[in-house]
């Protein structure tokens, strides 16, 4: 220690004080609020899962553990059928919208063209529009189209799963575009230049350099499209007919009338399914 420092240290011994932290911006109350918020978000989920195992047939009290509701669920043909349909619709609409959306994203990020702003506007509209407006629009459109079809060919079409798939693709494309565009924006074009320099043509460059690097973005977009389709209720409600049984609509009907813990069971399963899907996609992305 320097001479000056030691001489000054004897001026007054410092009182030991409790650790005085840094200038706080309300850290404690922020943390409390956050904890309350997370509880708020998860208590209903926890209740849902826990009460899928209760004996109580109304699912509001805990009267003992049972797996009955799960077994009954798997025996419930209607619900299982609806679940299958929903998965089928989600799968198909995800594949198509991801492909279409990725192509559009590539076009928007790599090319300049007139009408770019108009395209942007058109793409953002499905994201900001209230779902019910889109649902009634599609309902009206399908009725109109079917009538037109009948006038022309004499054949009657009815709304079915394909109708729902078409609708889901229509609103998913925009979301895929947004996600893939972000991925493309972060893509370093010099990598493509390097590939070209090394002799790769456009096709090879795309598949061996660009595509693997934007794949996380594409997967993210696909995941979003899948989730949106799986969870979609309003459009499914408006477009479903006698032949189409979709899970969210079945759940809606059950919730409005007679509720049994089978609902809890299926939602627990759906939650597990969604979570594992995301975990899987993260694992795949990490390996790349």
């Amino acid at each position: 220690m320097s001479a000056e420092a030691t001489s000054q240290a004897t001026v007054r011994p410092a009182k030991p004080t409790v650790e005085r932290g840094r200038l706080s911006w309300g850290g404690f109350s922020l943390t409390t609020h956050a904890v309350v918020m997370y509880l708020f978000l998860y208590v209903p989920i926890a209740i849902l899962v826990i009460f899928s195992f209760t004996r109580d047939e109304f699912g509001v009290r805990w009267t003992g553990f049972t797996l009955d509701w799960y077994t009954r669920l798997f025996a419930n043909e209607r619900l299982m059928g609806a679940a299958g349909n929903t998965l089928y619709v989600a799968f198909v609409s995800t594949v198509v919208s991801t492909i279409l959306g990725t192509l559009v994203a590539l076009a928007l990020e790599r090319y300049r063209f007139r009408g770019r702003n108009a395209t942007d506007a058109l793409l953002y509209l499905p994201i900001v529009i209230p779902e019910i407006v889109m649902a009634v629009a599609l309902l009206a459109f399908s009725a109109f189209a079917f009538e037109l079809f009948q006038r022309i060919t004499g054949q009657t079409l009815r709304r079915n799963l394909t109708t729902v798939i078409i609708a889901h693709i229509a609103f998913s494309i925009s979301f895929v575009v947004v996600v893939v565009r972000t991925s493309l924006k972060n893509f370093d074009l010099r990598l493509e230049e390097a590939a070209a320099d090394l002799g790769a043509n456009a096709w090879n460059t795309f598949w061996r350099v660009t595509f693997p690097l934007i794949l996380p973005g594409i997967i993210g977009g696909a995941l979003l499209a899948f989730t949106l389709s799986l969870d979609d209720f309003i459009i499914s409600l408006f477009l479903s007919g006698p032949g189409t049984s979709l899970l969210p609509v079945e759940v809606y009907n059950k919730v409005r009338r007679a509720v049994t813990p089978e609902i809890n069971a299926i939602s627990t399963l759906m939650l597990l399914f969604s979570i594992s899907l995301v975990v899987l996609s993260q694992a795949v992305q990490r390996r790349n």
Partner: protein
Amino acid sequence: MSDGNAIELRDVVKQFGDVYAVDHVSLRIRDGEFFSMLGPSGCGKTTTLRMIAGFEYPTSGEISIHGREMSTTPPHQRPVNTVFQSYALFPHMTVAQNVAFGLEMKRIAKSEIGPRVQEALDQVRLTGFAERRPRQMSGGQQQRVALARALVNSPEVLLLDEPLGALDQKLRKELQLELKGLQRRVGITFIFVTHDQEEALTMSDRIAVMSQGKVLQVGSPTEIYERPTCKFVADFIGETNFIDGTVIEHGDNYATIETADGLKLRGITPRPVAIGEAATLSIRPEKVRMFAPGDAKAEHAFTLPVKVELVSYIGSDTRVTVRLNPQRTLDVWEQNTFSTLDRDAYWQPGEPAVLVCPPDNALVLTE
């Protein structure tokens, strides 16, 4: 009762977990002085500054501003202002609004704010920039806005946290002189944090050299440079040569050490030493004279036989690296006071030489 001390730190400690960022620091900074805290990254200088500003509270110890204890007073209630390293100008406000901010917080009348802002801008030579936005201005200009924004509040002390760090060399030197001049004119105590020792030496009235949370030495630039009290300060400020040895005799202010090779070297002792203690001789490259063997006159000085190894011609001076022994080389700087193209006038590698060092030019340091 402030007895001329603008800031007083008494045994201040700041702990982050197990780490002592500031380790029992005591300082007295006088009114009106330009005081610098100098040291390498992580030495605690910025943390100390932040505690004076109020962004951190000391774990223990006291901080007083003009005699008033303020260790745990929140920053917005302290009569000090800070110029941040990143300037921290509010991007959504104009220059004038930025500068006026502190006055608005004090609820000064609107009619008075306008002229004072103008005056502050004039003071930092930014007249006419009032309506600009920070992002439209260069780094040097932004720094001056930050300065104006702080000074307009007439703080008792101005704190500057490496304000010139982001600027290029030329601009830095310009602004160093400007800041020094400004401080003289305004008369406020400036506390300046930097890791650039040249900057500290140029601008300061006094410097505190810090390392690992401790203050190693406080003094004027001359004191710090000519009479460092420990090896770290001798090495951190400027350049120096170290030769290790053991103390064999000592007197009032001097001591003689003997090296492993049997060389006896004499130098000033800033601290008392004991016979047999391990010590190091510190001698700066410009303070030693170099002669060809036979030419050396060594009255009241010690000599070192060496061999020239490397010669760097810088233009204004020649920097020579000489070898003392297989383990140790020394640096010698000579000003080229003669102008000649004759090769023999300059040192050549491989030449033998003798270093002559007056005892007043060397220090014997024990830590």
